[in-house]
């Protein structure tokens, strides 16, 4: 694993067996995160982004079967496959909270109402850094001050219900950062907050990142937030990444029909355009018993009959650091992939036809 990378996800698949069939919310996710980078994972509900980031920390539900590799570049121990670890074992528990932390969408329910905020923040410090309660308390209060919680000493002893939404999110960030992790996974951290508070929290996250070279995996469906926060963006649809690249490129020149559709579905504030918004027809299908085909096939304006419904495109590099998974895009790499897929289908078709002939004989 390249030393500039901090996280590498290879062919991640999550399957949930159900009585009606197998649900496959994540169907082969590949991406990387460099040190100090903010990577965005963008998609709508049902695309599998939450399950992907939960798989990194091994906190998926028992029912989920997780396959693939998630390689974490440990500062002292080198590359480790997080999925190879026992989800309840000591090894991954030493990583959770210390090397890789996570913050969640609803700060109101992320804290236990029975313990003070300080107690819960110190819990992380006590687990990973020190066994001394006083030292943990000092570390926590120092981090609280850094994060911008006023009257940190007083707030340390208060309960979650005494905090507002924005404050609680700051407290959650404190709890995540108190052990100075290398990666922060943020699962829709500002969706439940007011827009002015959201702006404060996003700025805070950027500031925290500056001093520590920490990588942030930012999951959201809000294209505005992604533009503000992320250096690189991965667009997910139906369990796969359909486009990946630097934020500026993705916004200026989206290649994949889904990304393109999404960009045009949102009204850009500050522009006077009042025409009809572009809307992608149909809805996200259920990820159950899917056959081999492009996940976006049914809703795509550029679909190629006979190809896109028979084969699933892979991510190919269309420009330095810009990858797209689509047969229909107009560039060299995609065209090459398309030709290869068409040839393979033709061969399969011929094989099938010759088998038929053999049977008739």
């Amino acid at each position, binding site marked *: 694993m390249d030393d500039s990378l901090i996280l590498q996800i290879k062919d991640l698949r999550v399957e949930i067996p159900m009585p009606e069939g197998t649900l496959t919310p994540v169907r082969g996710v590949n991406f990387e995160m460099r040190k100090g980078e903010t990577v965005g994972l963008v998609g*709508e*509900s049902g695309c599998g982004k939450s399950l992907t980031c939960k798989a990194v920390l091994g906190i998926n539900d028992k029912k989920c079967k997780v396959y693939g590799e998630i390689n974490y570049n440990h500062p002292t121990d080198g590359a480790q496959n997080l999925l190879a670890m026992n989800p309840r074992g000591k090894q991954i528990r030493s990583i959770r909270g210390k090397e890789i932390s996570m913050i969640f969408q609803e700060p109101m329910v992320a804290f236990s109402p029975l313990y003070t905020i300080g107690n819960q923040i110190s819990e992380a410090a006590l687990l990973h850094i020190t066994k001394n309660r006083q030292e943990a308390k000092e570390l926590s209060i120092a981090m609280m001050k850094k994060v911008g919680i006023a009257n940190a000493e007083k707030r340390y002893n208060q309960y979650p219900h005494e905090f*507002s*939404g*924005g*404050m609680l999110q700051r407290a959650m960030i404190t709890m995540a950062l108190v052990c100075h992790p290398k990666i922060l996974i943020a699962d829709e951290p500002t969706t439940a907050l*007011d*827009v*002015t*508070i*959201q*702006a*404060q929290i*996003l*700025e805070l996250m950027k500031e925290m990142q500056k001093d520590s070279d920490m990588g942030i995996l930012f999951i959201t*469906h*809000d*294209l*505005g*937030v*992604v*533009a*503000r926060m*992320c250096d690189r963006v991965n667009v997910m649809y139906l369990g796969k990444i359909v486009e990946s690249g630097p*934020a*500026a490129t993705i*916004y*200026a020149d989206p290649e994949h029909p889904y990304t393109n*559709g*999404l*960009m045009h*579905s*949102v*009204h*850009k*504030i*500050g*522009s*006077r355009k*009042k025409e*009809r*918004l*572009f*809307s*992608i027809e149909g*809805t*996200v299908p259920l990820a159950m018993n899917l056959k081999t085909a492009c996940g976006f096939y049914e809703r795509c304006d550029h679909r190629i009959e006979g190809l896109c419904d028979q084969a699933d495109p892979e991510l190919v590099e269309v420009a330095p650091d810009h990858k797209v998974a689509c047969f229909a895009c107009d560039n060299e790499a995609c065209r090459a992939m398309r030709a290869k897929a068409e040839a393979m289908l033709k061969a399969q078709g011929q094989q099938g036809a010759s088998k038929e002939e053999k049977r008739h004989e």
Partner: protein
Amino acid sequence: MNKESILEVKKLHKRFTSKNITVKAVTDVSFNVSEGETIGIVGESGCGKTTLGRCIVRAYQASEGEVWYRTRDGKELDFLKVDKKQMKALRKDIQMIFQDPYSSLDPRMTVLDIIKEPLVANYKKTMSDKEMNEKVISIASKVGLNTTYLKRYPHAFSGGQRQRIGIARALVVDPRIVICDEAVSALDVSVQAQVINLLRDLQKEFHLTYLFISHDLSVVEHISNKVGVMYLGRMVEYAPTDALFSKPLHPYTEALLSAVPVPDPTVQIDRIPLKGEIPNPANPPLGCYFHERCSYCCEKCCSEVPAYIEAEPGHFVACHRAAELKLRGFEYK
């Protein structure tokens, strides 16, 4: 009442009292709505926009104020003071679409029955069952629902489709005003676009007037003719969309506009920082509610509540320093 207005809200107040604590959810709100317009009402949590909408339809009983409505025959009535019988007749004219597509439909009724219910409640004696069913089918296809699925229960439908069912239910009685209470907030981006387009098409076809309550400024800018900004129960600014977004007159509006993340990584945002947090609505600050967080606060702001005045034609604002401040909005190219 203004000749072109279809709805005029005058000094509306709503207070919630419980155990000696009074929360002023809506304080002294006034504005005009012309027929066929879309008025956007924006604000953050605790601003009272949802309460305002519910007071207008009389789902909540307003504490004070008037809501003047011009009926189809041109009569002017105070919606809040009509008697029960008149109320029943007028209910059909103002309908509401709710935010949560999951709790706004009774899970135990078929979709057909859900959309038919307002007809049954109002036209039981004048319409036959067959006529009602026909009306339901026609409205359902107008909003884009597959009419063969009407016998299904809500759990069979996705969020966007449920929202369409809610829209059909609101429109089946031919209302004139529809209050969209965060009608697209709970939907995915691509579905939001579908529903927003649908609302615009329906407005054109049925000559509807919308009161669009939302916290999403991008959507509001897209769909509204006029926008009202609320803060802690008061209307702090009310203006045509272009004017509000390009030349805001209230510091809160300025801060709000600068905080919205733009889906364009090349745009440099110079955010106006707001100190502190939204105050407790049960204990609002003295004077201007916003003064503790305002960068332009002066002495007068701390003691006197600013008057809601028409600073420019059609552009209302409640700020002592509106005339002198040069606030930053979006540059419309």
